[in-house]
């Protein structure tokens, strides 16, 4: 059993973006590293383009699969507005990785929807360490925009306290072999993107 310090990691995005795949990879990697782990999310209606959130917790022993608000160490959002929606789950000084992709939600009352501006600076101003990544651009560069979620996963690898080998082993064991090179490359690029100039707390947001 791993008696090291665990993490609470929240993943958010829009149905169909691949939120559930990367939260699964985190939980499996944590188990590979010897932790107890739990993961929870909701299936069904939320997947039809709605807001999706997945909670992953690992530690020597995990009880509630739901992360209490204000206790997530890390939030990764595959869509920017969804990052804002769940940011209050992150602890003071925690890390938020935002994909720069914007998807304007459908209107529920027929009126035009105003997409909030300046999300990253707003969150940085709240004391979170905010990182904005154009994961889709990196994934397209690698040849498949669908790997954007794995790029984002790579950005948090260094903060999970889990050795890189456990990550690559989990991906090799879990992902379809025909996409493994693409995904390993995407993960690597995510790690590199995060290793760049570290954004200071309250600064460094790119947009």
């Amino acid at each position: 059993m791993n008696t090291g310090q665990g993490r609470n990691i929240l993943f958010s995005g829009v149905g169909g973006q691949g939120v559930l795949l990367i939260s699964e990879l985190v939980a499996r990697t944590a188990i590979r590293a010897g932790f107890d782990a739990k993961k929870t999310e909701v299936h069904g209606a939320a997947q039809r383009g709605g807001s999706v959130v997945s909670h992953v917790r690992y530690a020597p022993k995990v009880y509630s699969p739901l992360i209490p608000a204000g206790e997530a160490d890390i939030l990764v959002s595959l869509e920017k507005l969804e990052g804002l929606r769940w940011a209050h789950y992150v602890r003071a000084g925690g890390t938020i990785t935002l994909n720069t992709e914007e998807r304007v939600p459908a209107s529920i009352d027929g009126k035009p929807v105003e997409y909030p501006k300046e999300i990253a600076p707003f969150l940085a101003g709240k004391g979170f360490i905010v990182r904005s990544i154009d994961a889709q651009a990196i994934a397209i560069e690698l040849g498949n925009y669908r790997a954007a979620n794995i790029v984002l996963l790579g950005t948090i690898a260094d903060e999970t306290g889990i050795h890189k080998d456990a990550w690559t082993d989990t991906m090799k064991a879990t992902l379809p072999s025909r996409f493994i090179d693409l995904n390993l490359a995407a993960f690597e690029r995510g790690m590199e993107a995060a290793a760049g100039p570290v954004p200071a707390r309250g600064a460094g947001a790119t947009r």
Partner: protein
Amino acid sequence: MSVDHSPQFFSGNEAIARGAWEAGIHVAAGYPGTPSTEIIENLARYPDVNVEWSTNEKVAFDVAYGASIAGGRALVAMKHVGVNVALDSIMVTAFSGVRGGFVIITADDPGMHSSQNEQDNRCLAKFAKIPMLEPSDSEEARRFTKLAFDISEQFDIPVFLRTTTRTSHSKSLVTPGEQVRNAPKGYRPEPSKHVVPIYGKRWRKNIDDRLAKLEEFAETFPANVVELNSDKLGIITSGISYQYVKEVFPEASVLKLGMIYPLPRKMIRDFCAGVETITVVEELEPFFEEHLRIFGVTNRSGKPVIVGKEKVPSMFELSPDVLRRSLLDEPSPPVFSPEISIPVRPPVLCPGCPHSGVYFALHKLKAVVTGDIGCYTLGALPPFSAIDTTFCMGAGIGNAFGMEKVHGETMQKKLVAVIGDSTFLHSGIAPLIDIVFNKGVTTIVLMDNSTTGMTGHQQHPGMGKTIRDEKTYAIDYEQLLRAIGVRHIDVVDPYDLVGTEAALKDAMSSEEPAVVISRRACVLLEEERAKHHTPYEVLADLCEECDLCLKIGCPALDGSQAVPEISKERCIGCDLCAKLCHFGAIVPVNGGAQ
């Protein structure tokens, strides 16, 4: 099948399937419904189990129960509201008992994540006089499923296993065990037990005697666990709430109930008598709390003081946050929405969804539309705003006919009931027969997208394949409709907007019941995804910014700028938006060249 004993990271539903397989189950049946669907899907992966998607939950129950009284171990799985559909069959089984172990899974949905209502099916255990177990994580889901089969056979009664969305759809570590493989018991006719309307009276007392024995059994049942800690606070709980209690009150003594009906009266009384504050933490109804009050429990000082639903909410899900707020009076966690607007993100029909074509037409025709349960309920949202009602599976057709009866000619030509193919087969045929029988004229749109869409593409009797994709007879809807007396039948492709509107108009003005079959496969089906699609784009110099294209409600079309923009990644090239454009401004990317 090889037995792998290494720990597995399973959802509660996967673990139930595993537990049932380990218990040597012979037959499993169900109808898809979130959060229960993956139980049957996972059981279908064990080749030595006879598994089916049934037409509806009552059929599923009857099939599985037939297997049980014939001597096999059987399981039926459904969501909380599915149990309502099967309830007629369930209620009688306390009389008639089982032969092979029989387990009924009820997957409740506190918080209504994917359901029309919130209901606490623990109440149904008491109502039907059937015992119920409730696991708190995936390992318990596996273990309790096996225990449920044993209890079922020991006490000659079906056993409910209750999950909630959070236990069904959370993953945690499971240690798989060996399979107990027994041949089904031989069939033995027992009409004095199984012809209930004639012989039921003689079994009536037996039901109460058996419940008394089960209560006795619960006192020492190893899944009811006392964890002694501080004597200041004692918490009685079960299921996922137990995990929240452990997180928020690590110092408390806990009575964790694995069997939640009938309850171990003595065990509960003794536990309460050892602590100063008795607190009941349960989602939804005050089910335990009411029992505690009837049992007359008292605390260490002999006082009958129970902290329960006056503090712990009786609606929606609990969570560590909710327990801190309600029991520790901690403030709500801060949210940012007062400082920055966070628009809600409703679920939407997919890019290229065939239902869009139908709803576009119904909106245009200003029809009064009664809806039903499925993805297509989303037609109620803008820009279509095309659905007036949606209640539960199969309700829409009867609802429309009732409206017609009240308002007669002023309304009958405006009424349309929309229903998906799987829902129609589940419970839409009987109300349609009723319309024909009673001389109604209501129009029905059968939205045939060749799958059970909402729950993730489960096979149904209209598809020509079973749960394991074996070829089988596919319902011929036109023949079926003719056989029940529908003569006005039209089949349209919902991508043909003009044809769809014309067919609907024709059907609505018809003097007899009319069915329009809107036939096109769900775009998320693998066969459909595999097809090559050329995405479309908006040519800015031709666009007149009239926004008519946005009326098709496509999420690949971003209308937040003056000139709408199509996401090349998400557009599937259905061309519905292009059909709406009067200016030829929406065209295939690169003129369709590949």
